[in-house]
């Protein structure tokens, strides 16, 4: 008694039911059901947030993005920014965990290349933030345009020194991509305008920077300017400069914004500091990882930008939030 049209109708109804179920379930899976939550591993240069407020700020951005996009975030990194070997083994271990994507701030421009290649070989989307590597194994690079940051330092310095004055550049980790780029930014902008001494490397250690700067100031009486290319280096140099009592004659330009650096800026020891936007770096890094997981097209490089901060603008409302973390006392 059941003819063909009835069978067809029933078959269509069943097919529609199945299709709708599949679509619905699929949509639910995509809409970040707990079981389908994506895992992203984020590896910093260091997780010693107390001595590196920059990374604390990156972490805030990463955590915020994780909440906004419903992504499970795991943050790792070496205790010491200079411990490149430790970071390499952390990256290798993270790859073994087969995350949905990886966000990495490379501690070394060359030594992290094999680890990045391995991630790429495993098909893990790779986002670099802050510091990059010499090969193009990362999918996206997000960070301050370091060369541009260096140029801003130079521009600030040129407001305080006269042409032909003697200045010094204090860098931090030799071989780090950001250090290289910042320095060339400074050098290119100062070239032909002032005399530049040989670059010093503090290994991102405030104490080492202090002794290097103290020696430099003591031995170079006609020194008129110092560019310190990261936070610990700026702190060390500022301490040496304050103790030397020559803060009025030597203009110190810093980089990044720990509270100590800002305190030096407030007191005029550090004239200007070029600050990055670490929160945005962390946030955009995770957003890019999410986009890569969902196969969206992205630019190869995203510049998070930098700002020249001096005592004049440090308490302006739009800068306060970036410079002073909430409930972050001394």
């Amino acid at each position, binding site marked *: *008694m*059941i*003819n063909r*049209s*009835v069978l067809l*109708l*029933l078959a269509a*109804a*069943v097919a*529609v*039911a199945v299709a*709708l*179920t599949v679509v*619905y379930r699929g949509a*639910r899976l995509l*809409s970040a059901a707990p079981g389908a939550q994506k895992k992203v591993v984020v590896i910093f240069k260091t997780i010693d947030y107390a001595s590196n407020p920059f990374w604390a700020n990156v972490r*805030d*951005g990463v955590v*915020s993005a994780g*909440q*906004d996009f*419903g992504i499970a975030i795991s943050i790792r990194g070496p205790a010491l920014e200079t411990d490149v070997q430790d970071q390499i083994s952390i990256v290798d271990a993270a790859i073994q965990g087969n995350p949905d994507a990886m966000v990495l701030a490379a501690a070394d421009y060359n030594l992290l290349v094999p680890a990045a290649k391995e991630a790429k070989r495993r098909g893990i989307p790779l986002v670099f933030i802050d510091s990059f590597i010499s090969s193009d194994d990362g999918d996206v690079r997000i960070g301050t345009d370091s060369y541009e940051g260096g140029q801003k330092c130079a521009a600030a310095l040129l407001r305080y020194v006269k042409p032909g004055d003697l200045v010094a550049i204090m860098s931090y980790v030799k071989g780090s991509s950001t250090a290289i780029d910042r320095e060339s930014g400074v050098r290119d902008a100062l070239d032909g305008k002032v005399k530049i001494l040989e670059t010093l490397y503090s290994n991102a250690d405030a104490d080492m920077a202090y002794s290097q700067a103290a020696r430099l100031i003591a031995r170079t009486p006609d020194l008129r300017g110092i560019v310190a290319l990261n936070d610990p280096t700026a702190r060390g140099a500022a301490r040496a400069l304050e103790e030397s009592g020559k803060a009025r004659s030597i203009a110190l330009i810093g980089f990044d914004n720990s*509270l100590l650096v*800002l*305190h030096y800026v*407030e*007191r*005029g020891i550090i004239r200007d500091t070029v600050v990055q*936007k670490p*929160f*945005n770096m962390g*946030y*955009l890094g995770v957003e890019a990882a999410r986009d890569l997981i969902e196969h969206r097209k992205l630019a190869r490089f995203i510049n*998070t930008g930098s700002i020249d901060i001096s*005592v004049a603008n440090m*308490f302006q*409302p*739009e800068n*306060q*939030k*970036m*410079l*002073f973390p*909430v*409930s*972050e*006392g*001394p």
Partner: protein
Amino acid sequence: MKIRRIQDTLIRAFAGLIVMALLLLGTLSYYYLHKILIQNAEATTMQLVSQLNRIIENYIHYMDDIALMAVTNDDVRTFIANPRADTPRLRSAIESTFESLRAVRRDIDSVFVITRDGRAIAATTGGALNPTVDLRKRFAELDAGAVPDRPSVSSAHVENLVDYRYPWVISLVRTLPAGPSGQSLGLIQVDLNYDIIAGLCKDIQLGKSGYVFILNRTGEIVYHPRQQLIYGNLKSEKIADILAQGGGNLKTSVDGREILYTAVSSRETGWEVVAVSYLDELFRASREAEYVFLMLSLLVLVGAVAAAMLISSNISRPIESLRRSMQAVESGNFDIDITVNARNEVYQLARDCDIAVKKVRDLIEQNRLEQELKRKLELRSLQAQINPHFLYNTLDSIIWMIELGEADRAIDMTSSLARFFRIGISRGEETISVRTEIEYVQTYLEIQKQRYKDKLSYEIAFSPDLHDLQILKLIIQPLVENAIYHGIKNLEGPGLIRITGEKDGESMVIRISDNGVGMSPDQLAALRDGLIEPRPSNGVGVRNVQERIHIYFGLQYGVSFESSPGAGTVATIRIPVIAGSPT
């Protein structure tokens, strides 16, 4: 015409109806569900936000209480009004007053007293006043923003009055009443720990990723969980729209997501507490319901189709079986019982069909019987003609004539007999022309006349227009025979038989009258009965005539008798006029 099966029609109708009903129901419930979800969200969020606003106002009230207390404190007034009274003793007295307040309330970060001439007292955590801050300038800035006798509340900001401390606070400032110079000489600043406000806002959960932020009167952000993103242009809020609306609910879309702003403004602080709910999260519950509804709909649809199939098969199966029965009847099989397995109109229809078929079957049977009877009667009428007595008598008469040497009469009689039989057997047709029937009767009477001589005479008078009409054959002669044997034969004296025929409308009336002995009423009654019931005493011929007329023409036609003793008998035959078609 395209024949469509009942089943298809029903399934189409059912499925269509169900789909339409479900669509209507689905759309309506979707619409109302969303409306209710939004209304509920608006109501609950409004409640939450209002509550948060009251809590914040309470904090502000508390800060203002402290500021008021400080403004009316004699030590503070002395410190501000009289620089010469600014002694360490006075300072420590004031500090300890404030410190005791701060000790019980951790939410108060600091209390400052700042004078127009650049002196200050700080009751705070940590060190000395920040040497880089120009206190005269700071007083001037704060004094410019203050309203006499009213507290003024700042947005969240970093306070740098204390050396190497950068706490996030919300400041409430009250200036002292103006002195003789018309200017206020000092002010009280109470700093509320920003963490308190941030914590209150963070604690509010609005769906999965909803949040609360606070704006001040001019639209600057007092608190926002993603303030850095907003300053970095990675996120935006429709602040202008919120301020323009001045509280209440606002549905809009930001960064590609549908959101609901719920804002409450505070008269105390001028702040606007704004909740952000994401509609897609709000509707997550509705998606669950939509799914269940969809599945149920499909189930109902499948059920409806199944029901339609069942119902239609219940309807069409008996109809189908009835149709098959009728097809059998069409092909000639009447010997079936039409019954269907149903308890509805189809059953009645089948029963009516059954009755009709049975009637047809009975009619056919009756027809067959009648045909059979006709043949039998014809045979009998034939037999009647060959009445053996008539034949013997006639043959006896012929023998006598021959013996008496009356050869001519013998020849006449023999040829009459021959003609009589020739007509009687005549080709087996049912009807013959009236003319032939008359000839037949005449022949018979001529033969009888040979026997009865002068005792029998006859007259035949048919109107001429009857001669060419058709008549059922051999219906007059048996009545003539009857008249002779029962009327004339026993009559003393000559007998006359008169046969007339005439048209009476559509009927033909033939009368056979004799002047014989007649019949008593009993005899007449017996004869009339004999027309109905076969009776051996009666002439087989008369009854045969009656039956044949009834069969051919119906009961309204037939033979009737009228008679009384001594007055003769009249037999009347009434038959319809049959137009002449002498074949």
